[in-house]
């Protein structure tokens, strides 16, 4: 690997320039010839700092992939060559997780330092506490499913206890409506509202809501047959 001395212009603190970085990137993506790989790997085995540089570029390659900053060819090499080990796949998932976490967190002290000073410490503490609360509440994501199930079950209980009417209840209601003007028997029937007894004999017209009476009959018969 044609690397210059650490004093060369354009070198960063890890002793890498852009060409070095690109070279390491190609190595990690399996894009170097065997001869070049041998040379690079011997250096990797010999120099601790160089090994750390390889790991740093590996990290940044994962970031570039996540950001869609790789070319089509590099992306293909990344998926087919780079991601063959479980350690790297885990690393990719870790970065995905960090991005998810970061997206639900409020800006922290470093970037928002100036803003923080203006808003005040109390406000920052509240926001951090709120973010932490949200994280604790909804992370990991199975908690969302658990909360949804709980809400569904609670709704079911409320519906059953308050809103639901059985066919018998609906039948009795309809019967009440049918005979709200006059009751059919001289004796009072439990559960039915008060209505005067007509005292009329057979053949005389009754003051009854026949539609409600038929509906009641149908509902009560259905309930009895069930």
């Amino acid at each position, binding site marked *: 690997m044609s690397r210059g001395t650490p004093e060369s212009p354009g070198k960063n603190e890890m002793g890498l320039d852009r060409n070095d970085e690109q070279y390491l990137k190609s190595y990690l993506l399996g894009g170097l010839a065997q001869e070049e790989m041998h040379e690079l790997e011997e250096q990797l085995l010999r120099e601790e700092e160089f090994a750390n540089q390889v790991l740093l570029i590996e990290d940044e390659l994962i970031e570039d992939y996540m950001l869609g900053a790789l070319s089509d060819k590099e992306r293909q090499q990344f998926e087919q060559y780079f991601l063959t080990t479980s350690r790297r796949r885990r690393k990719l998932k870790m970065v995905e997780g960090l991005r998810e976490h970061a997206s639900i967190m409020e800006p922290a002290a470093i970037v928002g330092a100036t803003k923080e000073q203006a808003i005040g410490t109390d406000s920052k503490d509240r926001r951090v506490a709120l973010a932490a609360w949200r994280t604790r509440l909804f992370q*990991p994501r199975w908690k969302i499913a658990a909360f949804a199930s709980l809400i569904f079950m609670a709704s079911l209980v409320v519906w059953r206890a308050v809103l639901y009417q059985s066919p018998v209840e609906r039948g009795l209601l309809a019967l009440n409506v049918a005979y709200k003007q006059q009751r059919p028997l001289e004796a009072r029937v439990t559960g039915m509202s008060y209505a005067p007894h007509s005292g009329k004999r057979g053949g005389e017209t009754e003051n009854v809501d026949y539609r409600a009476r038929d509906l009641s009959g149908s509902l009560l018969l259905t309930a009895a047959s069930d």
Partner: protein
Amino acid sequence: MGQPEPPFNFLLSKLSSDRDTAEKKLKDIRRRLVIMLDCRGCTSSEDLAHEAILCFARRLPNMDPPFVGDVIPYLYTVAYNLYLDYIDKQLLALPDNFTEIPGPDEEAANIKEQLHECLDACLDGMDPKSRDLVLDYYRLDKQSKIDLRKSLAQDLGISVNALRIRLHNIRANLEKCIEQCLGLKPPLEME
């Protein structure tokens, strides 16, 4: 690392006359060997690195003429040959009674949930400054990477490259924590 096996004694003496220094050197070489094998896409780089060092350490005392000089090129050749054997074995035909071919992402899918839980726990355990830095970095990573690094580095009063190294170290620690949380071997480290 503990007490090394007898075959390692000769190798250690070749690395340094001081036992502790030699052990540290061997530990570092093993770590780098794991990185190298990992870079080759080897899925059992820890085991292969151990095997390479053991194989080399066993050969070393019996060499004629006696071995002198730099151990790295020799060790590299041993490791590379073991890697080639490993590749050959990977290409062996499947047994006749093999019926199920696991999907490539099966393992990843299985541990994803657990990994998220571990990430939560590890982030909670981090020092707040490092956690804020890494989360800020990923929260803002939709910006141009160069601009983002510049702005973060400026806020921290450090150079962009120092920031890259700091972030790399934070991720490495996080990765180590997650590996331990998942009950796996710490990555790229000697036992």
